[in-house]
């Protein structure tokens, strides 16, 4: 009903209805008016319905995924589905999934709450990862290494924010996307090989030590249900525990922040900067705080991302930024749990689609490698459908559907 296309008469009638205090659902009125005026084909009512259905479909898929994973976990024999369930479960608990979840939590502060278009979250991650890894390699104690990673990313946010936050939103998008690329190119440049390791990056074993040393899990294997990992090491229970604890901590921090008046201020800035200015608030400062905070989450995400593997600049590039965006839109921007759910769903659904395609379509049509590519295509199409039919994501507020902002 907030289509710019809506006719003058619709507006006038709405005002009249509201003015007279008639208890009428305005959206219905508008829909009726539009329909009566022979307006938009398949007007708001139909598309509202379609959107609702899309929501149910999303929930059904999520439930099915959960069911398959639980069955696989308990070792229920279901043929290739068991194997699929196991790889989904493995992916869902993967420390790198957790890392992406933290990056998405940061992006959610930027975009979901404040409306800042950060198209270079990977740049923040990469800086955090470099700051952390290089410091450890140089013998800096763990806590300071983490602080250095955070500082690098925070400084990056300030440098990007100062020239762009006073301009229209698109400028930040352009600047972040190119700045993230610059970070990556500098990282992979051979000139700094000594520190960054160039395109090969920094081996995980060179900086993982201080984190694994903290483990009180002991050594050896632990076998829970269908899950079987070493207790301490790169691909270990300890890494999973650390990564998901950090996710939990980040969720709590975000929850504390966004329910506060500061969180309200962020959403106000997202909705209309000038309105907020007219109320005497320093919009630039608020946007800068949001940009830095989201960037710090990005830095933490970068550290978590490289811990189980290694710092390879090319693996933390544009693609990763776009994964983050997809996960954010999937889970629901401006929700506390959306980023976590979205990140898990994003990776797991891809495995699901790939697995189903690989196991049901004969190899002559779609071999394993092609099935992998098919998975990405489906993710792309799903993202498009999502933006059309459920722009608020799986967890988003249904009421937001009514406004095209």
């Amino acid at each position: 009903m907030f289509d710019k296309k809506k006719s003058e008469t619709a507006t006038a009638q709405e005002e009249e209805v509201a003015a007279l205090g008639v208890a009428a659902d305005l959206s219905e009125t508008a829909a009726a008016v539009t329909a009566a005026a022979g307006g938009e084909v398949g007007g708001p009512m139909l598309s509202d319905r379609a959107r609702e259905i899309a929501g149910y479909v999303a929930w059904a898929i999520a439930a099915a995924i959960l069911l398959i994973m639980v069955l696989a976990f308990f070792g229920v024999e279901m043929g290739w589905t068991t194997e699929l369930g196991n790889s989904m479960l493995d992916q869902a608990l993967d420390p790198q999934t957790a890392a992406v979840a933290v990056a998405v939590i940061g992006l959610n502060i930027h975009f979901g709450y404040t409306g800042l278009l950060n198209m270079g979250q990977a740049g923040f991650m990469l800086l955090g990862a470099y700051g952390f890894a290089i410091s450890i390699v140089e013998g800096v104690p763990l806590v300071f290494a983490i602080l250095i990673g955070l500082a690098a990313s925070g400084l990056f946010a300030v440098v990007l924010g100062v020239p762009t936050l006073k301009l229209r939103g698109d400028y930040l998008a352009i600047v972040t996307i190119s700045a993230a690329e610059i970070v990556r190119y500098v990282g992979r440049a051979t000139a700094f090989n000594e520190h960054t390791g160039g395109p090969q990056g920094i081996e995980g074993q060179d900086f993982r030590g201080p984190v694994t040393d903290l483990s009180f899990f002991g050594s050896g294997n632990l076998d829970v249900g269908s899950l079987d990992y070493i207790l301490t090491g790169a691909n270990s229970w300890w890494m999973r525990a650390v990564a998901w604890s950090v996710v939990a901590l980040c969720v709590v921090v975000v929850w504390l922040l966004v329910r506060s008046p500061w969180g309200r201020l962020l959403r106000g800035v997202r909705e209309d900067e000038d309105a907020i200015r007219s109320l005497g608030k320093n919009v630039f400062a608020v946007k800068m705080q949001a940009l830095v905070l989201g960037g710090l989450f990005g830095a933490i995400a970068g550290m978590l991302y490289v811990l189980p593997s290694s710092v390879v600049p090319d693996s933390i590039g544009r693609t990763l930024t776009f994964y983050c965006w997809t996960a954010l839109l999937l889970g629901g921007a401006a929700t506390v749990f959306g980023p976590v759910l979205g990140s898990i769903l994003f990776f797991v659904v891809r495995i699901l689609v790939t697995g189903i395609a690989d196991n049901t379509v004969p190899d002559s049509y779609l071999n394993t490698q092609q099935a992998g590519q098919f998975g990405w295509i489906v993710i792309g199409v799903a993202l498009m459908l999502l933006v059309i039919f459920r722009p608020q994501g799986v967890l988003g507020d249904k009421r937001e559907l009514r406004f095209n902002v």
Partner: protein
Amino acid sequence: MSESVVGSTDLSDKSARVALMSGVDEVPGAAKPDPILTVDKVVRQFGGITAVDVGHLEVQRGIITALIGPNGAGKTTFFNLITGFDKPSSGAAWTFNGQAINRTSASRVARAGMVRTFQLTKALNRMTVLDNMMLGAPGQSGERILTSWLQPIWSRQEREIREKALGLLDRFKLLEKKDDFAGSLSGGQRKLLEMARSLMTDPTMIMLDEPMAGVNPALTQSLLGHIEALRDDGMTVLFVEHDMHVVRHISDWVVVMAEGKIVAEGTASSVMAQDAVIDAYLGAHHDTDLGDDSLLEDDQFAAIEAEAESEGKS
């Protein structure tokens, strides 16, 4: 307003206001007994056209001043300039409450106590009406990022702000809408919300850009009452309005703009009878009072228009 020259006079009394303004010359840029806002040499050009060119204007403290003028006269642009939402094309100076504010940002102007509303309303669509309101409150400790996560620090203030917001919403007939998204409000309701929200900032001076546009007559009546009540509480009001009846009804002083310039000042009745004003509105000299109802009758208006047109051609 105790420190002001007229501090002793109680401006909630109509005769006191009349007496106060009777000493003021009815000429553009006239000096006021106790101006809260003083504007000098504000010029704003958009490419070739000069939207605003105000030499000198003083706005009297504690009364309701109306800013009128035909469409495109530059009223909104003038508002934008003095509230920091737009920058003048050349060196200008204006002071509010004795403080120079021509070089500060829009948010500082608002914090100095001068808030404005927008002709095209700026409701925060995907936030509830109550959240819209609560955002307006100044000096919230919970809005500082470092303390925001500690609820005990701000919860008491939050409760007070909430009470205040609910009170204002009740006054503006929006209370039952408090949990709805502002995006779901009608055009008139958005006007009301914006006005209520601006009052959350406890302003010294409030600048309303066509507050009554799209608000139904009955509510307009009660809003006029509220605006008068604000004035009686000591607030200064400057508002843009096209409805001459509204202007005549509540304004203590009227400033007329045309083609970017202040062309007349005075009390409502005298201004509407001034040649310069009629000229500005109708483009021709007439011995018609703009506040005259007969002007609104079709045949009268058509006659004036026809005459204006023929004069324009000649």
